[in-house]
């Protein structure tokens, strides 16, 4: 019974983190209708930046959040204006975006290998102290709680931005129909650039806390993270950022149950979920038919 309770709570916390992992990918897809194949590499890059800040400058991961976020926001702007507008104007933006982001992912991996080498890098969980916390009699590392609180904060920010700000309403309009938003006077280019940067910032924050939930970082981890993120956003709903939270929760709880009771099979879970959703509810668990947009 203890193991069952532990598995559920651990799964929820794990899922909240994976909601954050998928959020950046989904928000970019929602506005640009492009899959950022370098999403996992942005997470990896965020983790390496946090590792560097912690290892060389002694900056605590929590303090690193605004620094890393600012760096990625500033990185996103030139990246967006260099590539995305041209992609959108091209004949086949979706296919070209696959190629472009795949290339970007390779470049990022190579750069990290160049600067950090191939070794695994990690920030010990004791960075937040060695104390644990207890829920329903189950003890968890304090780093998990902090990770969950940061992820929930990020979800809250996305919700507030989309529902309670003018830019957010404009973003939702672009998500619903890019052309109609354009003719109604919304500065679609500006919104797209902002959301692209926001997607990278969310990925980088997931990267900072990835050490405490998914273990050490290494330069080639990006592809796997992109696959898992894709499974999560399809599960929730493509193009609906808040559906990603549900997708993350289902993924997290399912992984933990698989690990507890059928550990040998845990690896195939994201793919099984992906196939199941595509077969039985292709619009995602909470979604409208965003894919057909």
């Amino acid at each position: 019974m203890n193991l069952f309770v532990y598995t559920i709570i651990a799964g929820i916390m794990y899922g909240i983190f994976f909601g954050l992992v998928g959020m950046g990918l989904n928000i970019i897809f929602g506005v640009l209708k492009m899959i950022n194949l370098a999403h996992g590499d942005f997470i990896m890059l965020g983790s390496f930046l946090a590792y560097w800040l912690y290892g060389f400058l002694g900056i605590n991961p929590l303090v690193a959040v605004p620094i890393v976020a600012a760096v990625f926001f500033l990185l996103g702007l030139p990246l967006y204006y260099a590539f995305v507008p041209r992609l959108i104007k091209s004949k086949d933006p979706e296919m070209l975006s696959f190629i472009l982001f795949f290339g970007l992912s390779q470049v990022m991996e190579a750069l990290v290998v160049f600067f950090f080498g191939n070794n695994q890098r990690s920030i010990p969980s004791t960075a937040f102290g060695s104390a644990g916390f207890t829920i329903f009699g189950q003890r968890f590392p304090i780093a998990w709680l902090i990770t969950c609180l940061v992820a929930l904060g990020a979800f809250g920010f996305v919700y507030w931005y989309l529902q309670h700000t003018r830019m957010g309403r404009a973003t939702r309009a672009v998500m619903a129909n890019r052309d109609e938003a354009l003719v109604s006077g919304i500065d679609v280019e500006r919104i797209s650039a902002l959301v692209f940067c926001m997607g990278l910032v969310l990925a980088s924050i997931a990267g900072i806390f990835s050490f405490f939930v998914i273990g050490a970082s290494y330069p080639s981890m990006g592809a796997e993270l992109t696959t898992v993120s894709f499974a999560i956003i399809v599960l929730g709903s493509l193009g609906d950022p808040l559906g990603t939270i549900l997708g993350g929760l289902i993924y997290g709880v399912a992984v933990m149950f698989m690990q507890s009771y059928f550990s040998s099979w845990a690896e195939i879970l994201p793919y099984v979920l992906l196939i199941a959703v595509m077969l039985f509810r292709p619009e995602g668990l909470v979604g409208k038919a965003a894919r057909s947009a």
Partner: protein
Amino acid sequence: MFRLKSKFIFLSIAVLVFTAVTSFAAKPPKVITIGTLYASSGSFATSSTSQYRGLKFWVSQVNKEGGVFVKAFNKKIPVKLVAYDDQGQTGTAGMLYNQLITRDRVNMLVADFGSVLTSVAVPLAKVHKVLLFDPTGTAAKFFTPDNQFVVLCSLPTSGQWPYALADFLIQKKIPRIAIIYSSNDFNQSQAVTLHDRLVKAGINPVYYQAVPTSTSNYSVLLHGIEATKPDAVIEFGFVPNDIAFLEGLQSSGLKFKMVFTIFPGQQLQLIQKNVGPKALYYTYTYPTPPLLKYNDVNFGPTLDSFEQAYKETGKKVDFLVVAGYNTGLIIEKTLDAAKSFDQLEFRKALAGFSGKVKTLDGEFKIDASGAQVGEMLPVAQFVPQGADGLDMHIVYPANLKTGNEIYPAP
């Protein structure tokens, strides 16, 4: 008269042909070419580049002395290393091994790190009848009686690794043992050996589970293990698994009387950097050089003098550097012993000095299939030293023992 003349001509031609053939066969090469691969990226990069550095260092050392002595030509010949980057991909590795054999026509072939990247070299070496010097590819399936073209230089086949560990657990009469292992040949073969030996001794493991090799979070698994109330937890994985396992154990606050993982004994600096020294306190492992020092070296430098010489590279010695260097030593001994410059003669020479050579990496002894049986892996335990340091004691077997185990862990 005519018959005598033609006999003379025939004899002259025969002598000429014989001289030409023998002089061609005996002509020494200008350099001995050694072909190898390394992975500069991918999950094997850390280990592979270390192993490659060790081999490269051996090449630089022998060339400083004018080359390696080749008995077949009774002279020293310089060594040239031809190395390609397989990026940790078996597909690329297969193509590059083929290139080394067929295009570069290397004299000696050395495999990349580990069983995965060696697996593609074994059949190619067999088909092309080129002897493969295998530093660390320990999968038992590579070594079969019908294949004379592979020889394992550094470690025993993976199924033999836990022999001392199993004996230690049985001798300590530890009744409740949990085994968790990553589902790949290397780890599974160790888990199977340990499980079978324990069962034979009347100890039925209370937990025996495989997990995917990609597992990076052991929190729930550790709680599953804890539910079975084990005295000892044995985790067989690769370096990333060990890091995640130790990190998970540290952050969970769970305590077990004994914890064993493989790679702290081979990649201590890397693991310590990731999890911190406290996560390794009282952990057991298989110690390898430089943590394990053999004093009865009769070929090549001792570990101390090797470490001293290796300082010129500016890098630290780890086990894989030793394994790469040791492969160079085995090649050196082979060329020193082989009567002719021929791949099967090399294999015969290896069998000839098997069991007689002791390097900084331990005894070199192979069986008929080329598998290493000389080196064995003892059991060691890390203990705290000072405020934030680590010391290591070999606790089993008795002839290598440097300290007593602390069991149960405090």
